[in-house]
């Protein structure tokens, strides 16, 4: 699983019928200390994530196990909105829309 930040949305009219009604977001992966990793992904949103929020994403066939993604052509899903990341070196990384 990876941390990522929501940086945009995707609009698709013609798509697989099993993706209808699913929100597609562009996310950029970030490291646990909040720095950009530089990788962009398109993910199906299952938790109503918003613009610039830090989210938890799951990739691969496990993404289909997320509620709302069963038996759908999905390989990246947003499964959580991150409130905070606490690292043991006492750096708490605030993960909010403020960034």
């Amino acid at each position, binding site marked *: *699983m*990876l*941390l990522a930040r929501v940086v945009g949305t995707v609009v698709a009219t013609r798509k697989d019928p099993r993706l209808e009604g699913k929100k597609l977001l562009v996310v950029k992966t970030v*490291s*646990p200390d909040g720095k950009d*990793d530089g990788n962009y992904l398109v993910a199906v949103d*299952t*938790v*109503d*994530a918003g613009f610039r929020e830090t989210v*938890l994403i*799951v*990739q*691969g*066939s*496990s*993404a*289909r*196990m*997320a*509620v709302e*993604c*069963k038996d759908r052509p999905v390989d990246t*899903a947003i*499964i*959580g*909105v*991150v*409130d*905070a*990341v*606490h*690292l*043991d*070196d006492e750096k708490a990384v605030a993960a909010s829309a403020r960034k």
Partner: protein
Amino acid sequence: MYLGKVIGTVVCTAKNPVLEGKKILVVQPLDPQGRPSGKPVIALDSVGAGAGETIYWCRGREASFAWYPAEVPTEATIVAIVDRVNVPGGSKLEPGGRK
């Protein structure tokens, strides 16, 4: 499966309902000698691992089998807490944990 060390935690309030009650940890992958190898990953915990502990974790679809037959959307799961590693030439890995 891979060796790793717990270096932090992730807090999510809004999340996929299947993840409720499950601990989300930041893991630094390690090689058998105890040196960091690769970028930190976010993993679900199935064994009650704690801060600073040496663990091993598995990735991919198999990661969700820790909760089988429940279908949990995870691609990285901590499946054991390491007591000791025996390799030729010795290992600097220690159980760790917060004393």
